């Protein structure tokens, strides 16, 4: 054991002399009767999610299953996307094949510069939260490694209605087991990049994707 570690632990034990030696951490009870589930119907949640993400200045569209692909193509056209990054495992039915698709794979990864030069990235998500307008990526299939959703300036994200939960604790508990075992990197996105440092005016976009578009797909 490093001497620094030993010394710090010794200091801590000394500092905590007033704690009864047989006290266990759980003896300090934590009342968890704050909200952990949402009572609202799914359609209310979907509406709320759409509204809240929209408030962050993301573009939000609600589409049916059959219209998803066309909407993806139209959005890419509108956003002038020519090179689109595709993460590994994204359903092929979602590919807008007219575009130049840059497929990131586990074997051959796109470089930082390629990602930077691309016009956009298309992903699904792992979960979404209505109350906070949050999209959660867990680097799984259809989402890809973190750099993919960081460097391109436009992020088009497909969220299925049944992926939307009501409140934040539901999301945390949803991933609890995964985090206790696999613990993939998690990225929570609640709107496009923003800053409000200069005189507190909200200025959209500094480093992350400045344009975020969310397609909420009805089952």
């Amino acid at each position, binding site marked *: 054991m*490093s001497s*620094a*570690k030993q*010394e*710090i*632990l010794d*200091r*801590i*034990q*000394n*500092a*905590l002399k*007033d*704690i009864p030696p047989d*006290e*266990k*951490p*759980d003896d*300090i*009870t*934590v*009342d968890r009767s*704050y*909200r*952990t589930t949402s009572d609202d119907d799914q359609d209310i949640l979907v509406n709320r999610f759409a509204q809240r993400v929209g408030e962050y200045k993301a573009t939000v569209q609600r589409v049916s299953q059959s219209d998803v692909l066309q909407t993806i193509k139209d959005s890419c056209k509108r956003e002038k996307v020519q090179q689109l990054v595709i993460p590994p495992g994204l359903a092929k039915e979602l590919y807008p094949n007219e575009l130049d698709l840059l497929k990131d794979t586990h074997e051959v990864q796109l470089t*930082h510069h390629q990602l*930077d030069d691309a016009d956009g990235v298309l992903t699904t998500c792992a979960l979404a939260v209505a109350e*906070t307008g949050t999209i959660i990526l867990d*680097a799984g299939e259809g989402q890809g*490694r*973190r750099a993919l959703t*960081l460097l391109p300036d436009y992020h088009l994200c497909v969220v299925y209605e049944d992926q939307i939960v009501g409140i*934040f*604790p539901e999301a*945390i*508990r949803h991933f*609890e087991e995964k*985090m*206790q075992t696999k*613990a*993939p*990197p*998690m*990225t*929570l*996105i*609640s709107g496009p*990049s*923003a*800053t*409000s*440092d*200069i*005189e*507190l005016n909200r*200025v959209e*976009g*500094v*480093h*992350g994707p400045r344009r975020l578009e969310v397609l909420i797909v009805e089952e």
Partner: protein
Amino acid sequence: MSKRSKHQRTPTFEESAEGYLSNTQLRRNIGHATHTIRDKRAGVVAEMPDWEKLREAGAKLKQRTMRHLDKYLVQLEESVQQAGGQVHWARDADEANRIILDLVKAKQVEEVVKVKSITTDEIGLNKALAGEGIQALETDLAELIVQLAEDEPSHILVPAIHKNRAEIRELFREKLGNRELSDKPEELAEAARIYLRRKFLSAEVGISGGNFAVAETGTVSVVESEGNGRMCTTLPNTLISVLGIEKIIPTWRDFEVFMQLLPRSATAERMNPYNSFWTGVEDGDGPQEFHLVLLDNGRTKVLADEMGRQTLHCIRCSACLNVCPVYERTGGHAYHSVYPGPIGAILTPQLKGLDDPSAASLPYASSLCGACYEVCPVKINIPEVLVHLRGEIVKKKEKEGSLREKMDPEHVAMKWMGRTFRKRSRYERAQKVARSGQKLFTHDGTISKLPGELSKWTAMRDLKPIPKQTFREWWKTRS
């Protein structure tokens, strides 16, 4: 008490305040900013039916953590190591800087990219790196502004709040070489973006702080708005994160509490734009080398003070700064510490020790109004700790103080009044003496000038004299 002259030692709060109070730009900026965030925060908190329950849970979780900090730190180290990360322990700032320097030098780079981290400011990391020819580039827009201006941050969350856009335009024109820049916020942000993107794409080493570290899983989190946090923690091949030992939380589940408390308290949002959670290293995704540096630097001293220990519960939201009537008028620099405002007034003296006159002046930089305690998401009773620290300062003066310190007018007055209040006869006599004595100072029914320390009152305020008949005397006449 320092024998060095006023010019050599760090000024006390009292000495600094007047200058900052007179800075009109500062008063305008900080007044506007704090009131704006204050109101917004109230709005998003009002939305939460279980806010008080969350505060209580947050307080209890932090209490649990601090009371068993050694166990949790050991668990954290194991979890991080199992996930492929490395853990380093630093007893103080110098040790932390040495560890980081060695790690950076091993990569043979001259520049590293940084995410805003007050912890790294606390240890003076940038200066330590610069001393060895390594430039630490701040990537948070406000920190970039502060760095380019060779200035110091004045707010935990909005460090450049004391600068207005015209000042920033001039700064960018000069330092980023963009002559054509206007002062529109969008253009300023774009200039910073272009400049920094080049740096992000080529950086090999990133340095960050962290908001929380989960003992159970080894997960570290960064909470941010701009995306530079994601850039620094994802793009370089080597990531070094510096966290104070108090940043730890027991389990992943505890995020359901803290991630609801923090954004609403800090930026008055339901959720901030980006939250990154990473655990050790992930093959093929992000840095392949992760170093977690755990920092003590006085935190164990705070831990040892049973009453002061709650100071370590702080989750660095800055809600207390935004409601503090003192901070909103003097700004952060008056505190002469990386931690300003109410939390700074209790954390700084405990970290630095009471021998430092500037740090020791901070517990008095408060009218004890209690607004901070009301908004603290983890219920730190800041007024209680302020009063406790004042008690420690007085005790220290009595034990170690020079005769000069003990003859300090406040000290003498307090001791004398303490004696007087103990006995009714002394109390009543003192009233009578004061009433006679005040005749010297009373003109036209008002006291406008008092000598000595009390002149600080009469410099700007009048004082009503003790009435001809005190309540006690009136009471006696009834029977």
